[in-house]
């Protein structure tokens, strides 16, 4: 059973975003990290770059596969988890914790409404 915390929202392409108001934290789900297997490389945008909901913002590579990352919300990147450059395995170990990818200043909070709830996302992965 994969962990799907209820304190955040999800995108069909397996990214999550927190919903605490102005700043969102973005990463990939427990299900996604398990599907990918051992993550060995993460390519992320730089601080100050804009990301757009539904569009690619980076790449995550495991030993066996390459996957594009799609932005769950739109906004300006305010922080990038640089620990992932040296320890990409954090995505496997703690996808909702130390394996986070971006912090984003959210352009429009209403965009969260388009994302899936934990229950809806769990249904999709079952």
């Amino acid at each position, binding site marked *: 059973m994969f962990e799907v915390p209820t304190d955040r929202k999800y995108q069909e392409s397996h990214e999550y975003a927190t919903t605490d108001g102005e700043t969102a934290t973005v990463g990939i789900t427990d299900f996604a990290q398990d599907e990918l297997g*051992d993550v060995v*490389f993460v*390519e992320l945008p730089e601080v100050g770059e804009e990301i757009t909901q539904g569009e690619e913002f980076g*790449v995550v*590579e495991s*030993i*066996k596969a*390459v996957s594009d990352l799609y932005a769950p919300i739109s906004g300006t990147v305010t922080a990038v988890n640089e620990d992932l450059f040296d320890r990409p395995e954090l995505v496997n170990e703690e996808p909702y914790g130390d394996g986070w990818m971006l912090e984003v200043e959210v352009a429009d909070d209403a965009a969260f409404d388009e994302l899936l709830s934990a229950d809806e996302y769990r249904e999709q992965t079952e």
Partner: protein
Amino acid sequence: MALRKPPLYDVYAADATFTGFGGWDMPVEFESIRAEHEAVRDSVGLFDVSHMGEIVVSGSDATALMQRLTSNDVEALSPGESQYSAITDESGVIVDDTIVYRLPEAEDRYLFVPNAGHDEAAYRRWVDHRDEWGLDCEVRNETDAWAMVAVQGPDAAETVDRATDADVAPLSWGDVIEAEVGGVRSFVSRTGYTGEDGFEILCPTDEAEPVWSAFAADCTPCGLGSRDTLRTEMGFLLSGQDFDPDAEPRNPYEAGIGWTVALDTDFVGRDALATVADAGVEETFVGLVLRERGIARHGHEIVADGDVVGHVTSGTMSPTLGEPIALGYVPTSLSEPGTELSIAVRGQEKRAEIVPTPFIEDN
């Protein structure tokens, strides 16, 4: 077309994730590719490689047929020995690579192992040439009759020794014996494709389970994912990727397996390869290491001074080195270790350097 399931499928299906490979539904990963890779480098891993083909050639002209259809010198084999070889077409292009076993306790009986999904084509090739040349031997495609497991790693010898009624310690690389494994009459050969000491066990399909079980408690089960990272670290070729008669036509000299070509024997492709041996090759199979963050993958372009000079045929993160490694063909003039090139990783050029293969120390 439905994928073929290996005979051990149900034994480990609950513990593995699967992928289609060469027409077979094979385990790609059990717990973790990295953990499986490390188990083979550090202790011992167990692979189901039942997707590999098995063609048996027997009879008075078996040696002659094998000699004329494989590039290595089959006559150098005594019963109970095996060799790595290439199967080439008239122009010297590698059609497949294979291990040829001269089976023990018989003078004129061979079993060779084509790659997954190549068994039917190999069988046809052997039968057609036998008939064309009027040779007297029987050729049988026994792929469905044999299961094959590989026990690989520094602890492989003691692991296999415990599971067999034979003493495997004295075997040299390539030696093949008949022995009981988990009570099942099998062929046990000291071969493998991981760069580690190891054994491959051929047993009847319907008796595969006790053979697998004879090792399962002592070994880490491994999938094709770690098999790929292990062979890539060694610079070993993967059929259909590092060579392919259609998509990547390469001769054995380009592909770095010129040592399998016995020009003093008469085989299909021999004359073309003799010309190549005289003239030298324009392109060479090399190892590369990325010197910037990124992972090179199959198809990425290799660039020198702004010009595309080749492409990556295999690439991964090396679990042993913690560095991104790649294999591919470059102009021979750029193939010396130390040569600085770049690889366009998803369109972005990353610094790379030619390094000798194997990438890791050969055990």
